[in-house]
């Protein structure tokens, strides 16, 4: 029987994550790529990075019980680091695969964990998402190649630190963070392609260090409301507004008293919902003969505005909207997290992409803008 102040963490390590990166292969989904990487001399990064994250939890050792999976999926690392753990499942085949990640996550959640800590890349995040959805707090330890999902710490130590603070403090809350689907096949032939796949619940801790004066989650709510207020004030009665996926656009809908799908494109006019989770055809039909605005927020850890995977906001849809009627909204924090890297667009139409590049004034609050660059 666990003592009341003992915390339970589920640890899931995807041992092949990041395998390809060091040998300049993009991604590591698929057995064939993994074998190629190993032949090229790649060593799995995930274990080492998980150990680095766990260092931040060392002094909480006595108060944490880990649930994990066998061998490289967590057991070996925890044993080496000296943490108490229980192995709660089995790896199905001779190699770890996505189904193991999903089963592990589902099982641990069912048994009851305060937090699921997982190491991997975008693929791993998708697997965790498929098993959990929203509600269960998760933190990602980055072990993949350039990660697009926003559920990971910036590096292993910060993931560990976030986990430690989440377990220690009362002033945390959960924030929906994007899980991205990166098309690795496209990636390997030189095309960047990512789409919004879903959301996971990630803790947001007010103070990352004891004196860091970072805005609190409460003020993040205030910022979202301020952005929403600004957008609604600017809405004209005879226009269509396409609200793209994400939490920021959801706040705009909330201001109008409307519920919004997190993953889909909803269409609003005269402050009423005309379509929810519209398809490209539905959008084109609605937009025909009417003035339309697209309200979009950057998605994922890399600031995607329009990705090839956004089947709804297709080049045809974008073609019906003047550049000035593409309204970009974002909390300031999301922009700062990009560390100066531009927003990205990849519509599938290179000419359209080029036309979209340049600078855009982003609505970041009530009567506040940040001018930021769009690149392709």
């Amino acid at each position, binding site marked *: 029987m666990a003592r009341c102040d003992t915390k339970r963490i589920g640890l899931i390590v995807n041992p092949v994550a990041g395998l390809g990166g060091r040998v300049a292969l993009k991604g590591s989904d698929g057995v064939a790529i993994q074998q190629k990487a190993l032949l090229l001399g790649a060593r799995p990064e995930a274990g080492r990075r998980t150990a680095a994250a766990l260092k931040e939890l060392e002094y909480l050792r006595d108060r944490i019980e880990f649930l994990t999976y066998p061998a490289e999926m967590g057991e070996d690392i925890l044993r080496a680091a000296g943490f108490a753990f229980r192995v709660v499942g089995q790896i199905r085949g001779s190699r770890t695969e996505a189904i193991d990640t999903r089963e592990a996550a589902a099982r641990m959640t069912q048994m009851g964990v305060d937090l699921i800590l997982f190491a991997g890349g975008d693929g791993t995040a998708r697997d965790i998402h498929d098993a959990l959805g929203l509600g269960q707090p998760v933190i990602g330890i980055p072990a993949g190649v350039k990660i697009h999902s926003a559920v990971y710490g910036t590096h292993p130590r910060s993931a560990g630190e976030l986990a430690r603070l989440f377990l220690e403090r009362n002033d945390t809350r959960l924030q929906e963070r994007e899980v991205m689907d990166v098309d690795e096949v496209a990636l390997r032939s030189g095309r960047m392609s990512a789409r919004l796949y879903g959301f996971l619940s990630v803790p947001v801790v007010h103070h990352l260090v*004891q004196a860091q004066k970072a805005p609190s989650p409460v003020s993040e709510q205030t910022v979202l409301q301020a952005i929403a207020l600004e957008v609604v004030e600017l809405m004209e009665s005879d226009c269509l507004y396409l609200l793209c996926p994400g939490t920021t656009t959801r706040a705009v809908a909330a201001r109008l008293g409307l519920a919004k799908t997190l993953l889909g494109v909803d269409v609003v006019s005269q402050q009423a919902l005309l379509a929810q989770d519209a398809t490209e055809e539905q959008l084109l039909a609605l937009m025909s003969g009417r003035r339309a605005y697209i309200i979009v927020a950057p998605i994922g850890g890399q600031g995607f505005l329009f990705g090839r995977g956004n089947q709804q906001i297709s080049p045809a849809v974008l073609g019906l909207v003047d550049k000035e009627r593409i309204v970009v909204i974002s909390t300031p924090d999301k922009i700062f997290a990009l560390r100066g890297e531009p927003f990205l667009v990849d519509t599938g139409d290179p000419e359209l992409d080029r036309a979209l590049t340049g600078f855009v004034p982003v609505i970041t609050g009530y009567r*506040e803008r940040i001018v930021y660059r769009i690149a392709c």
Partner: protein
Amino acid sequence: MTMRDIPSERCQDGRPRLRRFHQARWDEPIIFELSRQGQRGVLVPQTKDGIRDQVGNVLETLPPGMRRSVPPALPELAQPHVVRHYLRLSQENLGADVNIEIGQGTCTMKYSPKVHDQLAASPKMADLHPLQDERTVQGILEIVYRFEQILKEISGMDRFTFQPGAGSAAIYTNVSIIRAFHASRGEADVRDEMITTIFSHPSNAACAKTAGFKVITLYPDRNGYPEPAALAAAVSERTAGLMITNPEDTGIYNPKIAEFVRIVHEAGGLCAYDQANANGILGITRARDAGFDLCHFNLHKTFSAPHGCGGPGGGACGVSRDLERFLPVPLVSRDGDHYGLDHDLPDSIGKVGPFYGNLPVVLKAYAWVMNLGARGLREVAEVAVLNNNYLLNRMKEIPGVTVPYAPWRRIEQVRYSWEELARETGVHSEELGVRAADYGLHYWTSHHPWVVPEPFTLEPTESPSRADLDEYVAVMRQVAEEARTDSAMVKGAPHRSTIHQIDHGPLDDPSQWAMTWRAYRKKVARSLSKPPEACDRCT
């Protein structure tokens, strides 16, 4: 018996050992805890019989309810105990005079000459009433007038006011002038957008917002300053003005500044130059020559007046001829040998402060320039730049330190990053800064947001010697090394300061925060099962 050669023990292998510093630690109670009933710190002129016979018991003439029924619960201390208490607190404070204060980037913590403080303490400055007849204050009026001429020459601007209390107040004053300018042309409603940059002092954005403007913020590109194309995307017929600093807090000079000004002017806006970072460019380049319409200086930074724990400082706003009429009243004018206060500005924005500004600070700034002259100001700027670049070279040698944007030269300050060290050790910039306090040093990280991750910003000014700079670098190197070898110790710092690590939790919790002793006592009492015991014989 051989004597010990103490000076030689201060060095090892040809370099100085680190200082075995410990800050004063008095464990000094809050002044209320030192209170003893009946003690008096100073006696007050009493109502003598001559007056009392005339007026009687004056307290009875107060309206009912306006006579204070219970005396204020101020502490009661004898005078020597007040002196002792505050002097102990002063010892627990690392003012710039006692430390190598190059860590407060953008604050220009140069040496504040003591002779200036003594001059400003003269009764002929300290005991002047601001509404005295002009004929009785010709001295201070002349000083103000002369200093205005000096700043006009340094900046190229046409008229100055010293009424703002410090830098942010000066920024607000300039914003208000811009607002008044557009209002005078009937464009108050149209021109409601103010442009600034993310590296500028937060007050640029905040003052504009306070004055009713929409704020548009530009982001730096890979060079560390915004591109003209970004500015072009931000300007429109709604642009009221641009508020920009150059060099920015990174210490990087934007060479396209004149183009920036041109872009905004073409859109019909005004340009205000935040010259808080002027120390490296005195006598090198001027605001007006780049086309700026307004500028401001911080007299307690570039011009050597002391910072006072956070004021009083001095803000000096300079404007072009066209904007003179909007300045706050009064201005100091000269008519032959007579200096006067000119209140006749019908288009003035009014007043930003009660009188004419912090004139003792103006006196100190004036004295500083009169002592150095043009050649001296040039020397100040050049040595500040040399010191800064020397420091940059030495800091770059420390493993774990990186310098964002072009790393080869800066003007007067540099924003560094500990990101590599943080990634390696898990120790953050603020924690490293607190550990530096154990060596008698300090640094400031950065304004928010931290565009540069794990930042720290150093500005040596012209005041330190090479040995000072080397000592600072040696401590930074030491602290970085400690982060690698004993990160828990660094994270638990400070260990040799006045107090130990603060638990910040209560400061954001309404049920625990306490901004006065009385609030603290109430909340503590509420959270304890029995009232705390007072010990009469302590202290």
